C-alpha cells in the first residue's frame, strides 16, 4: 500500500514537470519561427500592398494575426503529435507485461478510430481555410469602416454600416462553428474509443477474475495485474486526446500557414529589386508599358522618353494613368508588360528603385522627429534640409516647432499640403538622380506652389525630375510635356 501511494504521488509530480517543460520548449521554438515569419511578411507585404490590390486590414491580418495563429501548430501541436504516436505504443507495451489480452484490446480499438479521425481531418481542412478567409475579410472590414468613419458619420450612414458589420460577424461565427463541428466530432470519435477501450478492458478483466469468461482463459490474471491494466487503459488514448484538444491549433495553424504562403507568393511574384549601381542619368524611357489589373482592366500602353537632367511634366486627363505610370516605372504595378530603358539600355523596373526619389500623394511618416522623417531617404545625413524646407515655404513649421518636432505618425497637426511637402523635401534630400513626383503642387496656394516650382527647377539642373501634374504654372516650367 505505501508503495502504491508513493507511486501515485510520484507519477503526478513527474507528469507535471515533463508537461510543463514540453510547453516551454515548444513555445521557445515557436518564438523563433514566428519572428522569422513576421519579418519576412513585413518585408514582402508592406512595399507591395497596393500592387496586390489588398485592403490594409487584410494584410495586417496576415502579418500579425495569422502569425499568432501559426504559433499553436509549432508550440503545441508539433510536440503533442509525436507524443500521440509514441505514447499508445508505450502504454500497450507496458500493459502487455500485466495482461497481453488487455493490450490487444486497446490496439484493436485503434483501427476504427484511425479511420474516423482521417475522415474528420480531411473535411476539416477546407472548412478551416474558408473560416480563415472570412475572418480576414471581417478584420479588413473593421479597419476600413473605422478609418472611413468621418465619411460614414457625415452622411449619417452608421446604421447601414453597423448592419453590414453585424452580417459579416455572423457569417464568421457560422463558419467558425462549421470548423468546430468537425473538430468536436473528431474528438467525440476519439472519446468514444477511449471510453470503449476502458470499458472493454474493465469487462474483460472482471470476467476473467470471476472465472466466467465464455472462452478458455488465455492468461492467469490477478487483481494487481488487472488493476494495473485498467489504470493505464485511459492513458492509452490520453496522448491522442491531448492532441485532439490541440486540433484547433493545428487547423488554425495550417490555415494560417496557407494564407501566409499565398501572401508571400503574391508578393514574391514581383521581381526583387537587385541593387543597381548608381550612375549618371542621361535618359529614361518607357516603351509599350502596360498595366493589367486582376479584373482585366488595362492602363496604357505608355510611351515616353525623358532626357536628364531636366524638369519634365506628365499630364493628361484624370484617370489616364499618371500615377499608374509613375508606379509602373519602379515596377509597382500588377502584371506589367513593356520595356523601361535607362540611358538607352533595358532595365528591370524594380531594379530602378535605388535611383528614385519618390514623393507620392500621401507621404510616409515614421515615429521620430521631423528631421529624421525628412532624411528617411538620405544615404548620408548631410543634406541641407533646412534650406529645402525654407525653399518650399515650410520654414514657418520649422520656426514654430523645430526640426526636433516629434512627429505623430498619424500626421495630425500637419495639413495635407505640409505633409505633401515633407514628402517632397525627403525625395530631394535623398540625393537620388531621378525624382518621381505625384502632384507636387496640389493642395498648395498659388504663392507656395510658385516657390515649390522654383525649387523643382533648381533641383532639375542636375537631376531628372518627372512630375505628374495638372498645374499649368508648373507645366510651363518644364522642358518636356508628355500627355497621356
Amino acid at each position, binding site marked *: 500500500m505505501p508503495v502504491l501511494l508513493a507511486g501515485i504521488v510520484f507519477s503526478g509530480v513527474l507528469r507535471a514537470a515533463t508537461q510543463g517543460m514540453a510547453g516551454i520548449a515548444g513555445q521557445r521554438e515557436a518564438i523563433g519561427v*514566428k519572428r522569422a515569419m513576421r519579418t519576412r511578411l*513585413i518585408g514582402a507585404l508592406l512595399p507591395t500592398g497596393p500592387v496586390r490590390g489588398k485592403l490594409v486590414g487584410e494584410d495586417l491580418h496576415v502579418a500579425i494575426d495569422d502569425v499568432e495563429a501559426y504559433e499553436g501548430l509549432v508550440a503545441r501541436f508539433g510536440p503533442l503529435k509525436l507524443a500521440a504516436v509514441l505514447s499508445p505504443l508505450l502504454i500497450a507495451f507496458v500493459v502487455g507485461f500485466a495482461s497481453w489480452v488487455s493490450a490487444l484490446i486497446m490496439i484493436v480499438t485503434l483501427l476504427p478510430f484511425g479511420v474516423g479521425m482521417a475522415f474528420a481531418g480531411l473535411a476539416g481542412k477546407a472548412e478551416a481555410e474558408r473560416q480563415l478567409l472570412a475572418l480576414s475579410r471581417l*478584420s479588413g472590414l473593421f479597419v476600413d469602416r473605422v478609418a472611413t468613419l468621418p465619411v460614414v*458619420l457625415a452622411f449619417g450612414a452608421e446604421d447601414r454600416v453597423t448592419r453590414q458589420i453585424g452580417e459579416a460577424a455572423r457569417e464568421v461565427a457560422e463558419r467558425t462553428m462549421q470548423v468546430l463541428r468537425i473538430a468536436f466530432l473528431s474528438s*467525440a470519435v476519439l*472519446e468514444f474509443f477511449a471510453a470503449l477501450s476502458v*470499458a472493454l478492458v474493465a469487462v474483460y478483466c472482471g470476467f476473467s477474475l470471476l472465472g466466467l469468461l465464455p472462452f478458455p482463459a488465455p492468461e492467469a490474471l490477478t487483481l494487481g495485474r488487472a488493476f494495473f491494466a485498467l489504470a493505464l487503459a485511459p492513458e492509452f488514448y490520453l496522448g491522442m486526446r491531448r492532441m485532439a484538444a490541440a486540433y484547433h491549433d493545428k487547423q488554425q495553424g495550417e490555415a494560417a500557414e496557407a494564407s501566409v504562403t499565398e501572401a508571400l507568393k503574391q508578393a514574391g511574384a514581383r521581381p526583387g529589386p537587385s541593387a543597381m549601381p548608381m550612375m549618371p542619368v542621361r535618359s529614361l524611357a518607357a516603351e509599350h508599358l502596360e498595366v493589367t489589373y486582376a479584373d482585366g482592366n488595362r492602363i496604357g500602353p505608355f510611351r515616353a522618353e525623358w532626357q536628364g537632367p531636366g524638369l519634365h511634366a506628365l499630364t493628361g486627363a484624370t484617370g489616364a494613368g499618371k500615377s499608374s505610370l509613375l508606379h509602373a516605372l519602379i515596377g509597382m504595378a500588377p502584371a506589367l508588360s513593356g520595356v523601361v530603358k535607362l540611358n538607352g539600355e533595358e532595365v528591370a523596373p524594380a531594379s530602378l528603385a535605388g535611383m528614385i526619389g519618390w514623393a507620392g500623394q500621401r507621404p510616409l511618416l515614421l515615429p521620430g522627429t521631423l528631421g529624421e522623417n525628412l532624411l528617411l531617404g538620405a544615404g548620408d545625413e548631410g543634406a541641407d534640409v533646412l534650406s529645402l524646407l525654407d525653399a518650399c515655404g515650410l520654414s514657418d513649421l520649422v520656426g514654430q516647432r523645430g526640426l526636433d518636432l516629434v512627429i505623430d505618425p498619424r500626421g495630425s497637426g500637419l495639413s495635407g499640403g505640409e505633409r505633401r511637402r515633407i514628402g517632397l523635401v525627403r525625395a530631394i534630400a535623398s540625393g537620388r538622380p531621378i525624382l518621381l513626383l505625384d502632384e507636387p503642387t496640389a493642395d498648395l496656394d498659388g504663392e507656395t506652389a510658385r516657390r515649390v516650382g522654383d525649387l523643382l527647377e533648381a533641383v532639375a539642373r542636375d537631376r531628372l525630375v518627372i512630375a505628374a501634374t495638372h498645374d499649368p504654372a508648373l507645366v510651363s516650367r518644364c522642358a518636356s510635356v508628355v500627355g497621356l
Partner: protein
Amino acid sequence: MIAQLLHDASRRQRRATWVAILLAMLAAVAGVGLLAVSGWFLTGAAIAGASGIAAARGFNYLLPSAGIRAFAVIRTLGRYGERLFSHRAAFFALADVRPALFARLAAAEPGMVFSRPSGEVAAQLGSDVDALEDAVVRRVTLPGALAGAATGLVAGILAGPWSAVALLVGLAAMRLASRGLSARLVTAHVQRRADAMTRLKAGYAEYAACGAEIAVYRLVPRIVDAMAADVDDLEAARLAIVRHEAVVQGAQMVLAAFTVAAVLALANGGAPLAAAAALAGAAAAEAWSGLVRTDMQRPRVDDAMERLEDMASLQPRPPHHDDIVRLAAEPVSFSSGEREVVLEPAGRLLIGGPSGAGKSRLLGTLLGLREDAPQRIHVGTIEVRELGLESLRRLFASAPQDAALIAGTVADNLRLARPGVTDAEIWDALETACLAETVRALPQGLDQWLGGDGARLSGGQRKRLSLARALLAGRPWLVLDEPSEGLDSATERQLAANLSAWLDRTGTGLILVSHREGLRGLAASTFAL
C-alpha cells in the same frame, strides 16, 4: 456597459447555453461514474472469483457491466453536445456584440471617435471581443465541474467519511492554488501581451498605406526596427505566460495526485469501494482542473472588458435640432474678428487663403466633425458647435479633401449618401460629376469593386466620386474641398458648368474651397482666411 452589452447578447443565446450546461453536467457525472464503477466491478469480481465458484456465480455482473457501457456512451455524447452548444452560444453572442460596439462608437461625439487610431479600434472589435469568448463559455464549465466533483464526493462517502473529506479538501486546495497562482503570475503578462499586440497592429496599419516610399527608400529594415520593440515585448510576454501556465497546471496535477493517494489511504468499507472512491476521485479531480483554464483566461477577459468598456460607455451625441426644416431656410454666416460674410440660402461662397491657413479645419468644424476652427460659424443665430454633428449633417453634404471612399463597389460608396438612392439618381449624379463615362467603362460598372480607399481610381476620379456622393445626399448645402484637384482643365470647365446648373436646378447652396481658377467663378462671394 460592456457587461450589459454582453449580457444582452448572451440572453439571445440562452437556450443553447442551458442545453450546454445540462450536457456538461451529464458528461461529468458519466465520466466519474465510468471509472468508479469500473474500479468497483473489477475489485469485487476479483474477490468473488477468489472466494470460489459459488461466490463467482452469485456476483451480479450484469448491472455494472451495463453501467460501464452506458456511462461510456453518455460521456462521449454529452461532451460532444456540450462543446457544440456552448461554442455556438458564445460565437453568436459575440457576433452581436461587435456591431453593437461599433454602433456605440459611431453614435459618440466625433472628437471622442477620431482620437482613436483606426487600427486600435479594429483590434478591439476583433481580438478583444474574441477574448470575451471565455466569459460566455465559463457559464457552462463551472456547472460541469461541480457535477463531476459532486459525483466524486458521493463515491467518496460510500468508502467512508474520511475519504470524502480528503477529496473535498483536495478539490478545495486545487481551486485555491489555481486562483491564487493564476491571478498572481499570469495577469500582468496577459495585459502586457495585449498592449503589445494592439501597438503592433496600429503601427502596421499606419505604415501599410505608404508602399511606394517603403520600396524606393528600402525602408523595410527601418520599419522592422520601428516594430521590433513591440515584437520583443509580445514574445517575452507570451513566453512568460506559457511558463506560468505550466506552474499553475503542474500544481493541479501534483495536488490531484496527493488527493487520490489520500482518498485511497483513508478509505474503509472494503477494497471494491476503496478502488471505486480512488478512481472516482481521480476522475473528479480531472473534471475539476478544467476550471484552471477559466482562471488563466480571466485576466485576459478582464483586460479586454476594460478596454472595451472604454468604447461601450461612450456617451451618445445630443439629438438633432427640433426644426431642421427651419434651419435649412436660415442663412449661414462666417465671421472672424470684425469680418463677417452672410450667405443666404442657395448662395455660393468661396473660402480663400494660403495653404495651411486652416481651411480644412474650418470645413471640419462647419460639418460638426471637429471643433477647433478659430472662426465663428452660425446657422441663423445658432453657432455650429452648439448645433452639433446630428443637426449639421442634415444640413451640409460634404466632399472632403481626402475624398475618403469605403472599401466596396462604386454603388456601395454612392449609396452611403442616404437610404433609398435609385440607380437613375446615381447616374444623374455621376453625369453632373463628370464621372459617368468613367464608371460605364469599368468592367463591372457600378458594381466595380474599388478596394481599400478607392485604390482602383485615380486621385481625380476619387474626388469626383466623392462629389457625386455629396450630390446624392440631397442636403440644402453642398460643401466641397478642392473638388477639381487632379483634373485636367477641360474636364474642370465641364464640371464647373454642370455644378452651376445642378445648384440652380436643386436650389442648393455652395461652400467651396478651391485654389483653381476654373471653379472659383462658381462663387458669388469670398471669405478669406
